[in-house]
């Protein structure tokens, strides 16, 4: 009846077809963005010829990235020789597979400035860095060091002619400046690290080291008492031991005065000086204006949708053939808001190097061919993937006595079918073993993995009866001798582990232990944890060497859920918290001895003792062994090692020295 309607329908169909057409124009250029030759890296073609021509004749002048060669040619940059340290002091970075070629972007996903470590760790340059197997440190920014026998004096040599990313020379003054005006004055929001203290083996009191300049490229650190693992602990806690003096002297309140500093802070857009100093002093790699020694330097505002870091022209490392590193021109970090986008982006080739947890293993493996990438697995030094930590210092007296009773922990461990947990939660990847140090890592104990790892509900129930939880309420839940009910409250802050906590609830309630799962947001959980209200946590334990980073196993401060307020007692010097006794006290004794130990062997032995105590008490119960970290690397990216350890101490991806990653055409 109405002709208008027919016209209307036609218009609508046209609209739909336009929209449909919109997404059919086939954009399948999987390779990294610069393949398409759009506004990025314009001298792509130049690079190809130059590389073929250059070849490996080697001995003549060291080679550099084409984009820098052009700048050096038209004078904006000094020639390569002046940019690198003196020939002898140049650090040669061994390559994993082969000599790479220049060019290309490392495209990765990050969730914005809050995710600063995911660009911070891979680009980090410590004074001394951990070697491949993590047993000790090797020179990096520092060229070499000498130490006297009782490990109280460390003489560290820097690399002559080394420069900051803005071309200014990097000398011992930068180390002294950092020590005197920043670290010891605690200007960047961090207390002075333990590594810089040495402990009197007798009285146990701490003494701060002294740092003196020997000459432009050498400085000496003197400890009052022996500090055997000083360099290792610096590599763990502080990592770098220097700062661009010529930059910081223009902003530190101590040098420019409080109000001038505040004014500068305001110019940078900060509200108060402290926040400004922390960002520029500690998280400095996010700011283009701050010179750094890192292979890539920040180029734009980290709060944008895409954060870019460009190669450092003064980077002081070359590959074995003398080509100045890094091979890749830029890091391009695109902002994502949901983990599924990292997966989809990798599948679609938007990100050519990303890391994942084991739960994405199957999706990634299935799309390896289509996405043109390979999945590399690195081992983690974690004790478990899924487990529980019972808060030894929970307020409720009944629960505390129960948690401290080893039989209860054995019962909880035996009452859960680990094969089912590993099948369901880790997709069959993890082994059904107890929480323990893995083979090949420092502190490995024979047979620990099988301690209480069987599935024996009867023994578990027998143990619970033995403890005295014989009375039952109407729903068959066990009661304390005084009639009050035994309730475990597992607290967690993410939806991811809903399956796991539900299984735990089923097994515990099968044993008559009433269990609640409480999900709160992460801020609330943090608050509850620090106010000791988290009875049972499912947080993971991951430690490379207790001597390096004790926090997970030794209650030094309120951090790890299982020891709760013991940590507060130690950190408050006995004023607050709960006094540790028994094996926990013994652990603290061992730790004091480690701090005052004279030799590395001594330290390792004591570390082993601490781990043995953990094995004996099993405060932390594990139901699924550790799972590897997955690295999805595009098949176009070379020199990525296959078998390293993914640990925070080794700076996760930093251990692979990304400067020598390279992109095939």
């Amino acid at each position, binding site marked *: 009846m109405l002709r208008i309607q027919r016209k209307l329908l036609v218009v609508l169909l046209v609209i739909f077809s336009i929209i449909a057409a919109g997404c059919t124009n086939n954009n399948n250029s999987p390779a990294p963005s610069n393949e398409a030759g759009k506004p990025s890296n314009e001298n792509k073609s130049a690079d190809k010829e130059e590389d073929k021509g250059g070849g490996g004749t080697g001995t003549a002048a060291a080679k550099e990235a084409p984009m820098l060669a052009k700048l050096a040619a038209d004078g904006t940059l000094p020639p390569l020789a002046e940019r690198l340290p003196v020939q002898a002091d140049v650090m040669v970075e061994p390559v994993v597979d082969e000599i790479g070629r220049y060019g290309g972007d490392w495209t990765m996903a990050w969730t914005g400035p809050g995710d600063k470590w995911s660009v911070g760790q891979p680009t980090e340059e410590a004074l001394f860095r951990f070697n491949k197997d993590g047993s000790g440190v090797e020179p990096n920014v520092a060229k070499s060091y000498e130490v006297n026998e009782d490990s109280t004096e460390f003489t560290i040599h820097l690399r002559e002619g080394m420069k900051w990313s803005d071309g200014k020379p990097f000398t011992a003054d930068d180390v002294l400046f950092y020590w005197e005006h920043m670290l010891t004055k605690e200007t960047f929001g961090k207390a002075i690290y333990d590594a810089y203290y040495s402990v009197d083996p007798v009285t146990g009191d701490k003494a701060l080291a002294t740092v003196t300049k020997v000459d432009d490229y050498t400085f000496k650190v003197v400890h009052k008492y022996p500090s055997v693992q000083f360099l290792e602990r610096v590599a763990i806690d502080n990592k770098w031991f220097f700062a661009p003096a010529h930059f910081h002297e223009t902003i530190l309140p101590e040098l420019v005065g409080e109000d001038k500093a505040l004014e500068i802070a305001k110019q940078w857009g900060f509200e108060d000086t402290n926040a400004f100093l922390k960002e520029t002093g500690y998280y400095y790699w996010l700011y283009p204006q701050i010179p750094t020694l890192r292979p890539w330097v920040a180029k734009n505002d980290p709060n944008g949708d895409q954060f870019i870091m460009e190669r450092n022209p003064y980077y002081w490392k070359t590959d074995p053939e003398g080509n100045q590193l890094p091979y890749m021109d830029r890091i391009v970090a695109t902002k994502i808001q949901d983990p599924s986008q990292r997966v989809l982006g990798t599948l679609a080739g938007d990100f050519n190097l990303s890391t994942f947890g084991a739960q994405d293993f199957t999706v990634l493996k299935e799309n390896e061919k289509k996405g043109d990438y390979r999945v590399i697995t690195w081992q983690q030094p974690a004790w478990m993937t899924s487990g529980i930590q019972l808060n030894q210092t929970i307020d409720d007296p009944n629960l505390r006595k129960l948690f401290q009773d080893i039989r209860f922990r054995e019962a909880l461990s035996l009452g859960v079918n680990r094969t089912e947990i590993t099948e369901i939660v880790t997709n069959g990847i993890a082994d059904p073993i107890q929480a323990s140090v893995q083979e090949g890592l420092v502190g490995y104990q024979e047979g620990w993995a099988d301690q209480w790892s069987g599935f024996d509900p009867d023994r578990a129930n027998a143990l619970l009866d033995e403890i005295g939880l014989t009375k039952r309420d109407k729903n068959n839940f066990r009661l304390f001798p005084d009639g009050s009910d035994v309730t475990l409250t597992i607290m967690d802050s993410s939806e991811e582990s809903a399956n796991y906590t539900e299984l735990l609830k089923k097994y515990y309630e099968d044993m008559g232990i009433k269990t609640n799962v409480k999900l709160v947001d992460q801020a609330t959980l943090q608050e509850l944890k620090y106010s000791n209200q988290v009875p049972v946590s499912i947080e993971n334990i991951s430690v490379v060497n207790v001597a390096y980073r004790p926090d997970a196993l030794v209650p030094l401060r309120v951090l790890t859920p299982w020891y709760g307020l013991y940590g507060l007692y130690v*950190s408050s010097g006995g004023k607050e918290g709960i006094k540790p006794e028994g094996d926990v006290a013994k652990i603290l004794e061992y730790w004091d001895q480690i701090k005052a130990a004279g030799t590395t062997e001594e330290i390792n032995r004591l570390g082993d003792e601490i781990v043995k105590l953990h094995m004996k008490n099993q405060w932390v119960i594990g139901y699924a062994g550790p799972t590897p970290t997955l690295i999805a690397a595009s098949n176009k990216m070379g020199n990525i090692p296959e078998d390293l350890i993914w640990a925070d101490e080794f700076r996760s991806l930093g251990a692979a020295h990304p400067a020598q990653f390279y992109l095939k055409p």
Partner: protein
Amino acid sequence: MLQYTLKRILLAIPVVFFISVIVFYIIQLPPGDYVSNYAAEMSVAGEGFTQEDMAAMRADLGLDRPVYEQYFIWVQDIVLHGDFGFSFNYNKPVLAVIEQYMGLTLTVSLVTMAFQYLVAIPIGIYCAVKQYSIGDYFFSGLSFLGMATPHFLMAVILMFLSYTWFGDPLLGLFSAEYVNAPWSMDKAIDLAKHMVIPVIVIGLSGTADLIRVMRGQMLDELNKPNVVTARAKGLSERKILFKYPTRAALNPIVSTFGWSLTSIFTGSTITAIVLNLPIQGPVMFNALLGQDMYLAGTWLLFMALLTVLGTLISDILLAWLDPKIRTEFRGT
């Protein structure tokens, strides 16, 4: 009418002020605060935070002061020198953060809303005129489908299909190479390409309500006697349709139009997160989740203002559209 509008605007100021008090109180209701959230995030990335670190940070940010004191400082800054406070997360003044995302938010919202109204109203009319025809059932069914599927699920499914069929899941609003590139024709096309999924997801479900309401209203109006009079005057069917029933049917739609003002400026939140759209919704969602006090507070204040304005606009539109009400207002 002007006098009435002025009165309403004056009335709005105490309301917005009252809302700002409630809003500020509610934001910090959950137990943790910004610092505990920041500490939790950092500990995941391996950087342990001690009690002292957190206490120092709280003092820096002024979060150790009681709530009402924080509120007064915030409001005082706004009233006295127009400073809306500082975003902890972005380390930038709040206005700078809002400004950064405003452009794209408006583009996405306005395009989606235009799609909704331009699609829903004609279909609503069509379904009313051609009641019980296949077209009626088809369009109704399509719009119900949009309404019945949770946005974020539809978004993920569409993204995955786009990946399997076209190899590109169309994440975010721009392909990697255009994000920081200056505006150009290519960039505009790329944006249009990326707009397809959000428009379908947000648009489709939005159309469902509009189509149903429009159809219901049109069916009421089509059979009214004034349509017969118009026909007796010799008007063409098309002219009758768009002048009389359509105009009357727009009344309920317009009366809630004012309230979509707030959704224009936020855009849908959870869908934007899933589709990784760089617009206000997710920014404010995270600000609330992480209790970035002044950013969240300012934004909600801005939303309150928009809600009040939206109601005012709706009332004015209601009056302008329906003469009966207009004459009543002329009386007051």
